[in-house]
Protein backbone atom coordinates (compact mmCIF):
# COMPACT_ATOMS: atom_id res chain seq x y z
CA UNK A 1 0.00 0.00 0.00
CA UNK A 2 2.70 2.49 0.99
CA UNK A 3 4.67 1.94 -2.25
CA UNK A 4 1.57 2.76 -4.27
CA UNK A 5 0.98 5.94 -2.28
CA UNK A 6 4.64 6.84 -2.77
CA UNK A 7 4.34 6.34 -6.50
CA UNK A 8 1.27 8.59 -6.68
CA UNK A 9 2.95 11.27 -4.57
CA UNK A 10 5.97 11.13 -6.86
CA UNK A 11 3.86 11.48 -9.97
CA UNK A 12 1.97 14.41 -8.49
CA UNK A 13 5.18 16.16 -7.43
CA UNK A 14 6.53 15.64 -10.94
CA UNK A 15 3.39 17.05 -12.53
CA UNK A 16 3.32 20.19 -10.43
CA UNK A 17 7.06 20.78 -10.36
CA UNK A 18 8.07 23.27 -13.02
CA UNK A 19 11.18 21.34 -13.95
CA UNK A 20 11.88 20.14 -17.44
CA UNK A 21 14.31 17.43 -18.31
CA UNK A 22 16.95 18.94 -20.59
CA UNK A 23 16.56 17.76 -24.17
CA UNK A 24 20.00 16.20 -24.14
CA UNK A 25 19.00 13.86 -21.31
CA UNK A 26 15.71 12.66 -22.72
CA UNK A 27 17.23 9.49 -24.11
CA UNK A 28 18.69 8.46 -20.74
CA UNK A 29 15.65 8.93 -18.54
CA UNK A 30 13.54 6.13 -20.07
CA UNK A 31 16.33 3.62 -19.46
CA UNK A 32 16.78 4.94 -15.94
CA UNK A 33 13.04 4.57 -15.36
CA UNK A 34 13.18 0.98 -16.52
CA UNK A 35 16.09 0.29 -14.18
CA UNK A 36 14.22 1.88 -11.29
CA UNK A 37 11.08 -0.08 -12.10
CA UNK A 38 13.11 -3.28 -12.12
CA UNK A 39 14.59 -2.46 -8.71
CA UNK A 40 11.17 -1.74 -7.25
CA UNK A 41 9.77 -5.03 -8.50
CA UNK A 42 12.86 -6.80 -7.22
CA UNK A 43 12.33 -5.18 -3.84
CA UNK A 44 8.68 -6.20 -3.72
CA UNK A 45 9.62 -9.74 -4.58
CA UNK A 46 12.30 -9.83 -1.89
CA UNK A 47 9.83 -8.46 0.61
CA UNK A 48 7.39 -11.25 -0.23
CA UNK A 49 10.18 -13.79 0.18
CA UNK A 50 11.17 -12.20 3.51
CA UNK A 51 14.66 -11.57 2.18
CA UNK A 52 14.37 -7.81 1.95
CA UNK A 53 17.47 -5.80 2.84
CA UNK A 54 17.10 -2.06 2.57
CA UNK A 55 20.82 -1.38 1.95
CA UNK A 56 20.93 -3.81 -0.95
CA UNK A 57 17.67 -2.42 -2.27
CA UNK A 58 18.67 1.25 -2.16
CA UNK A 59 22.14 0.64 -3.55
CA UNK A 60 20.63 -1.54 -6.29
CA UNK A 61 18.12 1.14 -7.15
CA UNK A 62 20.61 3.94 -7.61
CA UNK A 63 23.33 1.66 -8.97
CA UNK A 64 21.04 0.31 -11.67
CA UNK A 65 19.93 3.78 -12.67
CA UNK A 66 23.47 5.07 -12.95
CA UNK A 67 24.68 1.99 -14.77
CA UNK A 68 21.79 2.03 -17.24
CA UNK A 69 22.22 5.73 -17.99
CA UNK A 70 25.98 5.27 -18.21
CA UNK A 71 25.62 2.41 -20.68
CA UNK A 72 23.27 4.46 -22.79
CA UNK A 73 25.75 7.32 -22.80
CA UNK A 74 28.57 4.96 -23.77
CA UNK A 75 26.40 3.53 -26.53
CA UNK A 76 25.66 7.03 -27.81
CA UNK A 77 29.35 7.81 -27.94
CA UNK A 78 30.26 4.54 -29.66
CA UNK A 79 27.20 4.63 -31.90
CA UNK A 80 26.17 1.17 -30.71
CA UNK A 81 22.70 0.79 -29.21
CA UNK A 82 23.96 -0.63 -25.91
CA UNK A 83 20.85 0.66 -24.18
CA UNK A 84 19.07 -2.26 -25.84
CA UNK A 85 21.00 -4.56 -23.50
CA UNK A 86 19.69 -2.65 -20.51
CA UNK A 87 16.16 -2.67 -21.91
CA UNK A 88 16.32 -6.39 -22.59
CA UNK A 89 17.78 -7.38 -19.22
CA UNK A 90 15.61 -5.10 -17.13
CA UNK A 91 12.55 -5.97 -19.16
CA UNK A 92 12.98 -9.71 -18.82
CA UNK A 93 13.83 -9.38 -15.12
CA UNK A 94 10.73 -7.26 -14.69
CA UNK A 95 8.54 -10.04 -16.08
CA UNK A 96 10.39 -12.64 -14.05
CA UNK A 97 9.95 -10.73 -10.83
CA UNK A 98 6.34 -10.04 -11.64
CA UNK A 99 5.71 -13.76 -12.23
CA UNK A 100 7.27 -14.64 -8.87
CA UNK A 101 5.32 -11.90 -7.08
CA UNK A 102 2.11 -13.15 -8.64
CA UNK A 103 2.84 -16.75 -7.62
CA UNK A 104 3.72 -15.73 -4.08
CA UNK A 105 0.60 -13.65 -3.73
CA UNK A 106 -1.64 -16.44 -5.03
CA UNK A 107 0.04 -18.97 -2.75
CA UNK A 108 -0.41 -16.65 0.19
CA UNK A 109 -4.07 -16.17 -0.69
CA UNK A 110 -4.58 -19.92 -0.96
CA UNK A 111 -2.87 -20.55 2.39
CA UNK A 112 -5.17 -18.02 4.00
CA UNK A 113 -8.27 -19.68 2.55
CA UNK A 114 -7.07 -23.11 3.66
CA UNK A 115 -6.33 -21.79 7.16
CA UNK A 116 -9.78 -20.31 7.39
CA UNK A 117 -11.42 -23.56 6.28
CA UNK A 118 -9.54 -25.45 8.96
Amino acid at each position, binding site marked *: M*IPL*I*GLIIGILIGLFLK*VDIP*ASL*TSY*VPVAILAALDS*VFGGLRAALENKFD*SEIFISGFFGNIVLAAGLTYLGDQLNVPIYLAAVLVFGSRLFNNFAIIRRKLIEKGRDRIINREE
Partner: protein
Amino acid sequence: MKKLKYQLTIGLVCIILGLMISLQFKSTYSNRSKYSYKRIEDLVNEVETLRKQRDDLSAKVKEYQSKVDEIEKSVSSENEVANQMKTELDNLRVLSGLTDVEGPGIIMTLTPSNEIKNDGTTMIYSTDIIDIINELNAAGAEAISINEQRYVGSTQIKEAGAAIKINDEKFSPIEPFTIKAIGDPKILEGAFKMPGGIKDKLEELAGINVKITQVQNIKILKYNKNIQYKFIKTGR
Protein backbone atom coordinates in the same frame (compact mmCIF):
# COMPACT_ATOMS: atom_id res chain seq x y z
CA MET B 1 7.58 -3.28 12.54
CA LYS B 2 10.05 -4.75 10.12
CA LYS B 3 7.39 -4.93 7.46
CA LEU B 4 6.71 -1.23 7.86
CA LYS B 5 10.37 -0.50 7.27
CA TYR B 6 10.33 -2.43 4.01
CA GLN B 7 7.30 -0.66 2.84
CA LEU B 8 8.65 2.77 3.75
CA THR B 9 11.88 2.11 1.89
CA ILE B 10 10.07 0.90 -1.19
CA GLY B 11 7.61 3.78 -0.88
CA LEU B 12 10.44 6.31 -0.75
CA VAL B 13 12.03 4.84 -3.83
CA CYS B 14 8.63 4.79 -5.51
CA ILE B 15 8.37 8.56 -4.99
CA ILE B 16 11.57 8.98 -6.98
CA LEU B 17 10.35 6.56 -9.61
CA GLY B 18 7.04 8.40 -9.92
CA LEU B 19 8.86 11.70 -10.18
CA MET B 20 10.99 10.41 -13.03
CA ILE B 21 8.03 8.90 -14.82
CA SER B 22 5.93 12.04 -14.67
CA LEU B 23 8.80 14.31 -15.65
CA GLN B 24 9.51 12.10 -18.63
CA PHE B 25 5.82 12.10 -19.51
CA LYS B 26 5.74 15.86 -19.42
CA SER B 27 8.76 16.24 -21.64
CA THR B 28 7.38 13.66 -24.07
CA TYR B 29 4.18 15.62 -24.40
CA SER B 30 5.78 19.03 -24.53
CA ASN B 31 6.19 20.74 -27.88
CA ARG B 32 9.85 20.05 -27.98
CA SER B 33 9.26 16.39 -28.59
CA LYS B 34 6.82 16.90 -31.42
CA TYR B 35 9.64 15.79 -33.66
CA SER B 36 10.96 12.35 -33.00
CA TYR B 37 14.64 11.78 -32.44
CA LYS B 38 14.91 10.38 -35.91
CA ARG B 39 13.44 13.51 -37.40
CA ILE B 40 15.74 15.75 -35.36
CA GLU B 41 18.69 13.66 -36.39
CA ASP B 42 17.69 13.96 -40.02
CA LEU B 43 17.34 17.70 -39.71
CA VAL B 44 20.72 17.99 -38.04
CA ASN B 45 22.28 15.93 -40.79
CA GLU B 46 20.61 18.08 -43.39
CA VAL B 47 21.93 21.23 -41.76
CA GLU B 48 25.40 19.74 -41.71
CA THR B 49 25.24 18.77 -45.37
CA LEU B 50 23.90 22.15 -46.40
CA ARG B 51 26.55 23.93 -44.36
CA LYS B 52 29.22 21.87 -46.05
CA GLN B 53 27.72 22.60 -49.43
CA ARG B 54 27.69 26.29 -48.65
CA ASP B 55 31.35 26.21 -47.63
CA ASP B 56 32.24 24.32 -50.77
CA LEU B 57 30.33 26.77 -52.90
CA SER B 58 31.88 29.82 -51.29
CA ALA B 59 35.30 28.26 -51.80
CA LYS B 60 34.38 27.84 -55.44
CA VAL B 61 33.21 31.45 -55.64
CA LYS B 62 36.58 32.54 -54.32
CA GLU B 63 38.33 30.38 -56.85
CA TYR B 64 36.32 31.82 -59.74
CA GLN B 65 36.82 35.31 -58.40
CA SER B 66 40.56 34.88 -58.52
CA LYS B 67 40.23 33.55 -62.07
CA VAL B 68 38.20 36.62 -63.04
CA ASP B 69 40.84 38.83 -61.48
CA GLU B 70 43.53 37.06 -63.45
CA ILE B 71 41.67 37.42 -66.71
CA GLU B 72 41.05 41.07 -66.04
CA LYS B 73 44.70 41.58 -65.33
CA SER B 74 45.83 39.78 -68.42
CA VAL B 75 43.38 41.66 -70.63
CA SER B 76 44.18 45.05 -69.17
CA SER B 77 47.92 44.58 -69.47
CA GLU B 78 47.55 44.12 -73.19
CA ASN B 79 45.40 47.06 -74.04
CA GLU B 80 45.31 50.70 -72.96
CA VAL B 81 41.53 51.08 -73.13
CA ALA B 82 40.98 47.88 -71.26
CA ASN B 83 43.45 49.06 -68.67
CA GLN B 84 41.46 52.23 -68.09
CA MET B 85 38.24 50.28 -67.90
CA LYS B 86 39.77 47.95 -65.36
CA THR B 87 40.84 50.87 -63.18
CA GLU B 88 37.36 52.32 -63.39
CA LEU B 89 35.85 48.95 -62.56
CA ASP B 90 38.06 48.60 -59.52
CA ASN B 91 37.10 52.05 -58.34
CA LEU B 92 33.44 51.29 -58.77
CA ARG B 93 33.84 48.06 -56.86
CA VAL B 94 35.44 49.87 -53.96
CA LEU B 95 32.71 52.49 -54.07
CA SER B 96 29.91 49.94 -54.04
CA GLY B 97 31.46 47.89 -51.28
CA LEU B 98 32.25 44.80 -53.30
CA THR B 99 35.84 44.54 -52.13
CA ASP B 100 37.43 44.01 -48.76
CA VAL B 101 38.99 47.28 -47.71
CA GLU B 102 41.53 48.30 -45.10
CA GLY B 103 42.48 51.55 -43.51
CA PRO B 104 42.56 53.61 -40.34
CA GLY B 105 39.32 54.23 -38.53
CA ILE B 106 37.35 53.47 -35.42
CA ILE B 107 35.67 50.45 -33.91
CA MET B 108 32.54 51.09 -31.86
CA THR B 109 31.13 48.49 -29.53
CA LEU B 110 27.57 48.92 -28.33
CA THR B 111 26.91 46.76 -25.30
CA PRO B 112 23.38 46.65 -23.94
CA SER B 113 23.47 46.32 -20.19
CA ASN B 114 21.77 43.36 -18.64
CA GLU B 115 22.11 44.48 -15.10
CA ILE B 116 18.80 44.58 -13.37
CA LYS B 117 18.66 48.23 -12.45
CA ASN B 118 15.55 50.35 -12.51
CA ASP B 119 14.12 49.11 -15.77
CA GLY B 120 15.80 45.80 -16.24
CA THR B 121 17.74 44.87 -19.32
CA THR B 122 18.22 47.24 -22.21
CA MET B 123 18.33 46.51 -25.88
CA ILE B 124 19.59 48.12 -29.03
CA TYR B 125 17.06 49.46 -31.51
CA SER B 126 17.60 49.63 -35.22
CA THR B 127 17.18 53.41 -35.06
CA ASP B 128 20.17 53.66 -32.72
CA ILE B 129 22.31 51.96 -35.32
CA ILE B 130 20.90 54.09 -38.12
CA ASP B 131 21.69 57.23 -36.14
CA ILE B 132 25.25 56.07 -35.63
CA ILE B 133 25.69 55.19 -39.30
CA ASN B 134 24.33 58.59 -40.23
CA GLU B 135 26.78 60.29 -37.90
CA LEU B 136 29.66 58.23 -39.27
CA ASN B 137 28.74 59.10 -42.84
CA ALA B 138 28.48 62.75 -41.90
CA ALA B 139 31.98 62.53 -40.42
CA GLY B 140 33.33 61.22 -43.70
CA ALA B 141 33.46 57.50 -43.15
CA GLU B 142 34.49 55.74 -46.32
CA ALA B 143 33.43 52.21 -45.44
CA ILE B 144 31.19 50.99 -42.64
CA SER B 145 30.33 47.54 -41.40
CA ILE B 146 27.97 46.46 -38.66
CA ASN B 147 28.79 43.07 -37.17
CA GLU B 148 30.89 42.38 -40.28
CA GLN B 149 27.94 43.25 -42.54
CA ARG B 150 29.12 45.83 -45.04
CA TYR B 151 26.94 48.91 -45.19
CA VAL B 152 26.05 49.54 -48.82
CA GLY B 153 23.34 51.44 -50.64
CA SER B 154 20.78 48.67 -50.33
CA THR B 155 21.55 47.70 -46.73
CA GLN B 156 18.48 47.61 -44.57
CA ILE B 157 18.67 48.08 -40.83
CA LYS B 158 15.35 47.25 -39.32
CA GLU B 159 13.69 45.30 -36.61
CA ALA B 160 12.46 41.90 -37.75
CA GLY B 161 10.56 40.30 -34.92
CA ALA B 162 12.85 40.20 -31.94
CA ALA B 163 15.96 40.55 -34.07
CA ILE B 164 17.60 43.34 -36.01
CA LYS B 165 18.02 42.56 -39.68
CA ILE B 166 21.07 43.89 -41.47
CA ASN B 167 21.81 42.73 -45.02
CA ASP B 168 19.22 39.98 -44.43
CA GLU B 169 21.24 38.60 -41.51
CA LYS B 170 19.55 38.63 -38.14
CA PHE B 171 21.24 39.85 -34.97
CA SER B 172 20.02 39.77 -31.42
CA PRO B 173 19.36 43.23 -30.00
CA ILE B 174 20.56 42.20 -26.55
CA GLU B 175 23.98 41.13 -27.79
CA PRO B 176 26.82 43.60 -28.32
CA PHE B 177 27.07 45.19 -31.76
CA THR B 178 30.39 46.06 -33.36
CA ILE B 179 30.45 48.89 -35.85
CA LYS B 180 33.61 49.47 -37.85
CA ALA B 181 34.25 52.55 -39.92
CA ILE B 182 37.20 53.59 -42.05
CA GLY B 183 38.02 57.26 -42.21
CA ASP B 184 39.99 59.81 -40.24
CA PRO B 185 39.94 58.24 -36.77
CA LYS B 186 40.03 61.61 -34.97
CA ILE B 187 37.17 63.10 -36.92
CA LEU B 188 35.13 59.93 -36.64
CA GLU B 189 35.58 59.72 -32.88
CA GLY B 190 35.07 63.44 -32.53
CA ALA B 191 31.64 63.09 -34.08
CA PHE B 192 30.53 61.17 -31.02
CA LYS B 193 32.18 63.36 -28.42
CA MET B 194 29.72 66.18 -28.77
CA PRO B 195 27.85 66.74 -25.49
CA GLY B 196 24.26 65.70 -25.90
CA GLY B 197 25.17 63.68 -28.97
CA ILE B 198 24.19 60.14 -29.84
CA LYS B 199 26.73 58.58 -27.47
CA ASP B 200 25.40 60.48 -24.46
CA LYS B 201 21.85 59.75 -25.50
CA LEU B 202 22.50 56.05 -25.79
CA GLU B 203 24.44 55.82 -22.56
CA GLU B 204 22.16 57.93 -20.42
CA LEU B 205 18.72 57.31 -21.83
CA ALA B 206 18.95 53.86 -23.36
CA GLY B 207 21.44 52.31 -20.95
CA ILE B 208 23.74 51.08 -23.70
CA ASN B 209 27.46 51.13 -23.10
CA VAL B 210 29.29 52.68 -26.06
CA LYS B 211 33.01 52.11 -26.46
CA ILE B 212 34.99 53.77 -29.22
CA THR B 213 38.56 52.87 -30.07
CA GLN B 214 40.75 54.40 -32.72
CA VAL B 215 42.54 51.80 -34.77
CA GLN B 216 45.31 52.33 -37.28
CA ASN B 217 44.30 49.47 -39.51
CA ILE B 218 40.84 47.96 -39.73
CA LYS B 219 39.74 45.44 -42.26
CA ILE B 220 36.17 45.73 -43.47
CA LEU B 221 34.80 42.81 -45.37
CA LYS B 222 33.01 43.17 -48.67
CA TYR B 223 29.28 43.04 -49.21
CA ASN B 224 28.67 39.34 -49.60
CA LYS B 225 25.22 39.22 -51.14
CA ASN B 226 24.24 39.23 -54.75
CA ILE B 227 22.97 42.54 -56.03
CA GLN B 228 20.25 42.13 -58.61
CA TYR B 229 18.26 44.89 -60.21
CA LYS B 230 14.90 44.00 -61.63
CA PHE B 231 13.30 47.35 -62.32
CA ILE B 232 15.85 49.99 -63.05
CA LYS B 233 17.12 50.82 -66.48
CA THR B 234 20.10 53.02 -67.09
CA GLY B 235 19.15 56.51 -68.21
CA ARG B 236 21.13 59.12 -69.95
